[in-house]
């Protein structure tokens, strides 16, 4: 199933596969493909659900719109209306699923996210695509590395960052079943295999020694992180849900330690979750390294692999930064 929208201008979908240098072998089906097919099924199963679109991915919902003409709503290229309509549906007792690229879902209509959902105290599921670096040829206008940080200024949002289409499906289903406010951040980047995500827990994939860094990989950066840590003494945790952050899970991972070194590897703005680490480890002296997308605009096109390399988020860059961070342990200068 294609999810290209067929619209013109800058709303054209990013390519689902990159043409030249290859990012870590993504499956043929993207998270966005899965979102479209699973949501079509959810519309069939649950009469409370409604999908609100602003052209992006609308072509993928053509069949669902035929089956449910009143529950698949494409408002055109109107993102304030997109979010306001979603919240209005919730006020009327529906469970809205609101979708477009992250930059147009969270950043452009941010006040609608803040007021129409949070301040009205209604729930809904916002599902974004194209994340931080998923369509580098589209440039910075279609990148939203700050989306999770922006949602951190609000109250009561659950944030899922799946790392595989199967995880996207599981987390989407979990989100739609609930009543609260959920953001599901889909990416073109994917790990080779899904993990058993859900319930908001950190998964402990590897245990290092008592002084080894504790590395938390988020969503689609897991494979690169695992590769980066090959042969290094490190604990590896995996998060596909970052808000609420599994503080207890992090504390368990460092139980018995006198100090802890924590590395966050996030596919959005670097350092977004350092506050969560600080809150989780209030009782423990610790150091934190927040890796992710820098604030500075790259102003380069190319491929996702190019951008991951430039951001230090490929395996080599991550290994270099984790090793350097570990070597700083105990230094004061």
């Amino acid at each position, binding site marked *: 199933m294609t999810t290209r929208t067929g619209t013109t201008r800058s709303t054209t979908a990013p390519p689902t596969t990159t043409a030249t240098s290859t990012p870590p072998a993504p499956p043929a089906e993207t998270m966005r493909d899965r979102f479209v097919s699973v949501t079509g099924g959810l519309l069939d199963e649950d*009469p409370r659900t*409604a999908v*609100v679109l602003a052209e992006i991915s609308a072509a993928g919902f053509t069949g669902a719109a035929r089956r449910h003409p*009143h*529950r698949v*709503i494409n*408002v*055109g290229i*109107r993102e*304030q*209306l997109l*979010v*306001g*309509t*979603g*919240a*209005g*549906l*919730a*006020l*009327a*007792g*529906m469970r*809205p699923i609101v979708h477009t690229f992250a930059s147009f879902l969270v950043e452009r209509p941010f*006040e*609608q996210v803040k*007021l*129409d959902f949070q*301040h*009205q*105290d209604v729930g809904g599921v916002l599902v974004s695509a194209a994340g931080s670096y998923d369509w580098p040829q589209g440039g910075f206008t279609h990148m939203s590395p700050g989306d999770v940080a922006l949602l951190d200024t609000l109250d009561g949002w659950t944030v899922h960052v799946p790392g595989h289409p199967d995880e996207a499906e599981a987390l989407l289903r979990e989100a739609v079943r609930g009543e609260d406010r959920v953001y599901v951040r889909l990416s073109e980047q994917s790990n080779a295999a899904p993990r058993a995500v859900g319930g908001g827990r950190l998964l402990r994939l590897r245990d290092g020694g008592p002084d080894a860094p504790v590395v938390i990989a988020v969503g689609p950066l897991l494979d690169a992180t695992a590769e980066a840590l090959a042969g290094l003494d490190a604990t590896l945790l995996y998060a596909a849900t970052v808000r609420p952050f599994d503080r207890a899970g992090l504390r368990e991972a460092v139980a018995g330690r006198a100090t802890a070194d924590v590395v966050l590897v996030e596919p959005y703005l670097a350092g977004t979750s350092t506050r969560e680490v600080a809150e989780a480890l209030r009782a423990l002296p610790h150091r934190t390294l927040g890796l992710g997308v820098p604030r500075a605009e790259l102003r380069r096109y190319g491929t996702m692999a190019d951008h991951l390399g430039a951001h230090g988020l490929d395996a080599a860059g991550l290994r270099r930064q984790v090793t350097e961070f570990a070597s700083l342990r105990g230094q004061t200068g």
Partner: protein
Amino acid sequence: MTATASTTPGGIGQSGFAELAGLMTRMAGAEKHVPAAHSTTDALWVLYDRVLRVTPATADAPDRDRFLLSKGHGPMAYYAVLAAKGFFPRDWLDGFGGFDSPLGHHPDRTLVPGAEIASGSLGHGLPLGVGTALGLRARDLTEPAVWVLVGDAELDEGSNHEAIDFAGASGLDSLHVVVIDNASASWGTARSQADRFAAAGWSVAEVDGRDHEALYAGFTRPHPGRPHAVFAHVEPKSA
């Protein structure tokens, strides 16, 4: 669908409208937005007294009419009408804006019985109204009407234009907008705004916003297949 004050639970009898001024003075300690509050009084009264199918007893009923006060500025008339109709006790008005009062200078739906939305930031009510109308339709609740009250200057906000164009083009005929026109926009006129609604496919009525019969006629004008906008012209804010 017409409810009179005398039959509305908690109502205050046939003299209802006349008592609003007295209720509003109970909030007069706070002068913020007073002219704006008064610009909406007549339209709000006619809506709640004769048009909206909602009472305190049906404030949570799925098939109630929805009234969304988008222009959250100057909610004193709104609070006075809700109190007069029995949505909350009249003595709540005395605490208007206080730390322990549920009644702020902009309404909060989680605090005010009968308030469908929290407002204050302009330009949110109409998109929320579009979604509410679509949600009711999706639930096969075809009877309830959705009403949104905006100010003429509030229509400066581009979010309204997204909603106006979409609702008109999609023929969302359960949606109604009341534009309180007190000529408070620095740029543009009610004329250009009414033309805009019409161009987008809306039914448009223009009435004297102080004339209760004219308001009622404008509110109840049939508009099959199209959303309906009522421009209620009142004295200019600067006058």
